[in-house]
């Protein structure tokens, strides 16, 4: 079942909705700012006017970060679900997120690597290591390709890596305080500082995903069907794994681990455009951006003047869907 019989119609509609929500994201927040001031902030910006600063230097960077991270995590989730044929696959549930966060924390705490430029690479190394570990554990388990085994392997590796990260926290209590909010997943103004370093990874990953979309559709029908259609399933799986790692790493480097985005958005997208990955991937990117913009808006406004970490909101929204999917799949 899908909402749009012709997926071509979905793209402009989602894009239009994304623009509307992006404007709402600009217009609303913890501090009310008049529409005329918002417009002034763009055509005659004044650094002395804090309302202008809020719009141009706080909300715009958050908006860009939310769009990039939402797109990256959603496409990563869609690819994982397609490649593993597991509707519960998600960068968070399969430990990529924990791996990426662990990579950043280890690099920063033990290797003394604190320059922003290295963060995506550290996150990618951690995510790749976690992905390999999950795969190896699943391969050696009886009925290793079943959704349950993959999910349990992911949960085990995730728990292990989170415990290690907490251990580092205990050893470096005070220094670690700077990581605390980042580890709960938070879109903030300074996320944009990471963008120049994360962007090449992000763009590369999205282009690779878009370029592989047709083959992912074949792969999602099973390895044998994909091979029958002339797809080298093993080589494609490895390429897509790297693509997923790169997308997850760029997102984690920018805002920390944000759970459930990669799970929720691809399922919502399938309801809109069906199961053809030529549409799922671009639409997931847009729906993911849209979703995270709404989440960030809620995080800023629900308890204003206090702000909630974005990760708390995504978990709050994603966890019920996860339970629903578990009931349906397992």
């Amino acid at each position, binding site marked *: 079942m899908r909402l749009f019989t012709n997926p071509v119609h979905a793209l402009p509609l989602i894009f239009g909705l994304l623009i509307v929500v992006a404007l709402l994201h600009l217009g609303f927040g*913890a*501090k009310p700012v008049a529409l005329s001031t918002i417009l002034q902030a763009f055509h005659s910006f004044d*650094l002395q006017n804090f309302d202008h*600063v809020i719009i141009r230097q706080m909300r715009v960077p958050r908006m860009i970060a939310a769009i990039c991270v939402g797109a990256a995590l959603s496409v990563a989730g869609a690819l994982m679900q397609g490649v593993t044929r597991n509707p519960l696959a998600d960068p968070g549930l399969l430990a990529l997120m924990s791996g990426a966060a662990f990579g950043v924390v280890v690099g920063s705490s033990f290797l003394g690597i604190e320059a922003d430029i290295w963060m995506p690479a550290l996150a990618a190394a951690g995510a790749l290591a976690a992905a390999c570990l999950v795969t190896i554990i699943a391969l050696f388990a009886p009925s290793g390709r079943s959704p349950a085994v993959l999910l349990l392997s992911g949960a085990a590796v995730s728990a292990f890596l989170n415990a290690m990260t907490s251990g580092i926290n205990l050893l470096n209590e005070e220094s670690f305080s700077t990581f605390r*909010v*980042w580890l709960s997943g938070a879109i903030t*103004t*300074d996320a944009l500082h990471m963008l120049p370093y994360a962007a090449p990874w992000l763009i590369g990953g999205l282009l690779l995903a878009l370029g592989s979309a047709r083959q992912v559709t074949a792969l999602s029908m099973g390895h044998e069907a994909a091979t029958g259609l002339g797809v080298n399933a093993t080589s494609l799986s490895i390429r897509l794994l790297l693509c997923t790692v790169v997308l997850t790493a760029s997102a984690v480097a920018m805002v920390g681990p944000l759970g459930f985005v990669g799970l929720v958005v691809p399922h919502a997208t399938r309801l809109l455009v069906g199961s053809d990955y030529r549409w799922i991937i671009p639409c997931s990117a847009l729906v993911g951006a849209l979703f995270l913009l709404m989440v960030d808006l809620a995080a800023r406004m629900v308890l204003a003047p206090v702000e909630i970490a974005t990760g708390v909101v995504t978990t709050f929204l994603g966890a019920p869907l996860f339970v629903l999917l578990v009931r349906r799949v397992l």
Partner: protein
Amino acid sequence: MKYLLIALALICSNSVVLADQTRLFVDGQGHEVRIPIKAKRIVSLRGEQFTAPLIELGAPIVGSTGLVQEAIHDGKPFIRGAHDLFHTTFEGSDIAFVGAPKQPDIEAIAALKPDLILVPDFASDSYDQLSAIAPSVVINIWSNSARERYRRIADAVGRLDRFQKLEATFDFRLARAKALTEKLLGDPSKISVAIAEVRGKRFRVYKNYGAMSYILKEMGFSRPDIIENIDGDRLDLSPEQVQAIDADFLVSSYADHFGQPPADLRANWDNLIPGWHLVLHAPRNNQHILIDREPMRALSFRSMEEILAIYLANIVTRDFKRLGE
């Protein structure tokens, strides 16, 4: 000579009696604990909150939790707060390291044969295990004022007399400082001071934060409404609300050896709240006061007196521009 020997014997026997005698103490979590009148072997499970004041009181500490940081004390365990304020080290004292504050080493504590264990409220999960080793009292960290917390600690270890002497000296200095403030500034409540920090991705304002906030309150300075109305000790505010903390002075803390030097502190503000130094009165007029966090956090009259001196120099006795001028 005979009388002298008798007097000495009486004093010694009196000390032994005091140490061996016990009394009932109701701790911060309502436990009714029988503790020594004057503890002789104390284990402290929080460096800056317990060990530091115990050192100032001259109490006999046999064990303390500590932290391990690669950049501090050559990577060896150190006692937070006490290390910074009194330069007390495990190697240079008779205090044994008994693990991290959130993960105390129960076996190491038992091996010390303490007669009293001080437990912070946020780490009281292992209270039952600790009470099996020795009488253990929970001291609430955040819900008491600094002085009241200190008094409770002094009371628990049987050093109220020493506490009162230190308190009298501090009160004398505080009274002099308040008199000078009124003389130079008039009504201190007309001067507002906000305590706020940006750490990582969090913009946090404080109603209660160690000696920094305690001395401000004792001196009679006011706080911005949003801080005054906090239900608790601190609040994470949206960076968009930074103007709500506008005050005559802004106070933040740095911790150089924890990798948070003053320069990073300002960079954190810049990253999270661009233009903060233009929109807030205090940094715009060079009225942003930076305080070394670790000595400030060490609960002690020494720390309170140091902070008092900082405020006298940076608020009371200098020319500054008032908010709204």
